[in-house]
């Protein structure tokens, strides 16, 4: 693909099945399907343990995406959707998961998923999603205590990064690394609005700034914005980050530096938090249904 037609904005898509795990022995098989505004994820769990998952871009028809992403997660496991005891849908498109038994918001699911991924010490969850950013406070059970979502501006979100990746022509998953490749931090771009931040970055590039430097300035602006949100909800340790952007080292390292708090290391892909949380709720719901609780 030539540089001009390359889709820098496109997030990677992938699936995985845990080796040496077999659903045939499992009592309860559940799935969580997280249809986000940009990315969709499915997590399949055996008795509350993560078994298989998939991550792909949300398409123009969310029903299809829901089916696609779930089938992809089940791909090669021999499982069919009808083998799933219970399914919970979450994310923007949660109502469009045809085979879901219930929907629960991504707020609740991310808190619970973070609890699974990072352990019971988690008190503050930052989820940087496709088009919004959530700061969630939760208790030792992974239950939401309070939460805030950013206002309508998409600054500090995945979509903002897409626009930017296109602009400086760097694949989106490398943006963070690129933004850290200079020793000196520039001032952040002054605009938090995606459109204006883009225009401003373009101006900087044309003034001859290196794309690495502009990337740093853009990431700094995103981080400032995210910190505003975090301070509003109030950060209590342990602090963790979920969602696709959690893998952007340029964001994470700057958050660490500017907040003076190190987020916990994820044991699993943090983009899955919502789907995992949903699958865990599905397990609980199923147990309730069959009288186990």
């Amino acid at each position, binding site marked *: 693909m030539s540089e001009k037609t390359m889709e820098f904005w496109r997030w990677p898509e992938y699936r995985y099945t845990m080796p040496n795990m077999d659903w045939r022995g499992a009592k309860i098989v559940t799935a969580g399907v997280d249809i986000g505004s940009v990315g969709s994820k499915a997590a399949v769990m055996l008795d509350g343990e993560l078994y298989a998952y998939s991550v792909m871009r949300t398409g123009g028809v969310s029903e299809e995406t829901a089916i696609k992403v779930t089938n992809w997660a089940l791909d090669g496991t021999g499982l069919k959707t009808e083998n799933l005891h219970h399914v919970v849908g979450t994310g*923007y498109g949660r109502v469009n998961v045809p085979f879901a038994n219930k929907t*629960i*918001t*991504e*707020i*609740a699911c991310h808190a619970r998923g973070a609890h699974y991924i990072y352990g019971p010490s988690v008190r503050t969850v930052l989820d940087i999603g496709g088009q*919004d950013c959530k700061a969630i406070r939760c208790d030792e*059970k*992974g*239950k*939401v*205590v*309070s*939460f805030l*979502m950013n*206002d*309508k501006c998409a600054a500090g979100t995945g979509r903002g990064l897409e626009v930017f990746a296109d602009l400086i022509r760097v694949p989106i998953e490398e943006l963070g690394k690129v933004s850290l490749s200079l020793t000196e931090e520039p001032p952040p771009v002054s605009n938090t609005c995606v459109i204006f931040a883009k225009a401003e970055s373009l101006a900087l590039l044309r003034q001859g700034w290196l794309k690495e430097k502009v990337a740093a300035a853009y990431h700094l602006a995103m981080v400032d914005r995210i910190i505003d949100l975090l301070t509003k909800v109030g950060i209590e340790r342990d602090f963790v980050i979920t969602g696709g952007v959690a893998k952007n080292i340029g964001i994470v390292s700057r958050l660490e530096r500017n907040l003076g708090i190190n987020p916990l290391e994820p044991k699993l892909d943090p983009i899955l938090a919502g789907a995992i949380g949903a699958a865990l*709720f599905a397990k*609980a*719901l199923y147990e*309730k249904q069959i009288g186990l*609780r």
Partner: protein
Amino acid sequence: MVAEVFETFREWIDNRHEYARAWKERAGNKVVGYFCTYVPEEILYAANILPVRILGSHEPPTVTEPYIFAMYCHLCRDCLAQGLKGRFDYTDGIVEGQSCLHLRQAFNAWRLHIPTDFAYYIHVPHGIQNPHAIPYLTQELAKFKKALEDWTGKKITDEDLDRGIRIMNRNRELMRKVYEYRKLDNPKLTGLEAMEMVLSSQMVDKEEHSKLLERLLQELPNRKLDRNPGIRLMIIGSEDDDRVFMKNVEALGATFVIDEHCTGSRYIWDDVIPHEDRLFAIASRYVKRIPCPSKDWPEFTRLMHSVRLAKEFRVQGTLVIQNKFCDPHGIEIPPLKEALKSVGVETYPLEFDVTVPWGQFRTRVEAFLETLTGLEELF
């Protein structure tokens, strides 16, 4: 039966302009559009004029750009847009009772750019907590009454004023009675229905509206709503006639059991207490009524009222709506949050704009409801 009544309210709202035109035909009297509930409709009824509240249509108000800078709330721009689009062309005049800068601007733009026979601005005092407000407003109202008389060429007698007061008091009292049924464990009406009741009362002849309310009150006791009321919510905030939002929220397993805004309880809560000086009586009502925050200083009396409502109606959670750029309401969000928290009621703020992004709001509202129920049994 009950359903029919609420259906009629809904139709009145959806066909408000047709209604007003027909009324004008029938009664052969003037129709006046008003911007804010601080306009004393008593005096307009006394003059046999039909007051109709000017509200928006929730379409992006493109046409207002030359007249109102977009940093003012969507309500004032949307109201003006209705005028510029000629949707209120049947009104003979417009009146504003002083409240916020936003609506004042809509009034002035209307006065300057839309041909209208009568445009009147009542300087309703802001200092409602000071003792001189009532005598002052009494004189403002006398001036207003005189202006109406000169315009219609007809004297407004004390009897006329008594009639106006009677019409307004009766309508408010009946609606408050309906509100009583929202206190029940399983309310006899939804928040949407309550909103449509009050909203329609601002658009149609109050006497006709009251007749319907009396029918409603006969049958309401026997009504069984076959829906789980779910979480008992209160909605507080800026002017809010977003019926879609009400409907959507109540579909998520909740019921609005009370509200504190000017398309609801704030409009109907207080009556005019008779006094031989009728204008004094009316002035007293508008100074002492549950205030718009734009007038509520130095003490936060409205917050205390909201807390009382939350207790009376056994509210579990509150959604606080701020129309973007509505400073009077925006300024009070943290004090309000604190006041309600002190009685164990959580709040969640939402910023409304001309169109409401339900997708984003659904997640917020649903998550807020989840925190109220705690999804307890699933942990």
